[in-house]
């Protein structure tokens, strides 16, 4: 059984190594998300985010998002936005689509400053918002330290 004192001992090195650089926080991510959705409800589902759960190099991380949608004039994906919790800025990319896109697909390479949660949100033409999230562990962070 681990006593609270032992826990503190285990946690102490982590406290000493706490980064001095300001990161975006889950609150900042929520604010960026509100800006994108205008406060509308975001439901889980229809969005599939594909990213490796264990990333060796945070400088370039392949990421792809696909949204289940017929992509017709009446029912299509207007936009997909990616947000993160702990990079210096919560926003990653916003992509815009029309019925001409044929498929709501986004693939790019992103930077991750540290292990964190990612959120992909799709805005549909009907005014609804859908999301998917992913947790990523980063072993080599994107170069903030030079």
């Amino acid at each position, binding site marked *: 059984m681990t006593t609270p004192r032992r826990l503190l001992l285990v946690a102490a090195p982590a406290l000493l190594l706490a980064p001095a*650089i300001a990161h975006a926080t889950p609150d900042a991510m929520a604010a960026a998300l509100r800006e994108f959705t205008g406060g509308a409800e975001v439901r889980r589902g229809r969005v599939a985010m594909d990213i490796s759960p264990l990333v060796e190099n945070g400088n370039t991380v392949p990421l792809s998002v696909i949204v289940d949608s017929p992509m017709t004039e009446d029912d299509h994906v207007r936009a997909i936005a990616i947000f993160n919790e702990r990079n*210096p800025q919560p*926003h990653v*990319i916003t*992509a815009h689509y029309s019925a001409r896109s044929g498929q709501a697909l*986004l693939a*790019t*390479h992103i930077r991750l400053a540290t292990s964190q949660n990612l959120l992909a949100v799709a805005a549909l033409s009907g005014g609804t918002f859908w999301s998917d999230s992913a947790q990523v562990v980063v072993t080599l962070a994107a170069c903030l330290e030079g």
Partner: protein
Amino acid sequence: MARVLINIPREIRAGETIAIRTLIQHAMESGYRPGADGNVVPRDILRRFTARFDDEVVFAAEFSPAIAANPFLSFTMNVVAGGTLTLRWEGDNGFDQTETRRITVA
């Protein structure tokens, strides 16, 4: 002019949805990284990408510094008939580059 790679399927049938992959050479300097002299290197990134097919926007994206150097993008487009695909990248310090590709259907 930055070097650009654009991958378009070679044979396209009318009505087909094709995937286009693009890569442009750019450092995407985030504005958070200290340089060799210890001072933070000023931000210099691409901000916006637009893909037009015969003057109709089929895909557009806004980048943040969290996009990796040499931005790679893949997107899809429904091709009904042949036309001209115009890809434009805009960024900090007046960066503006446009590439056009002719698309023909079999």
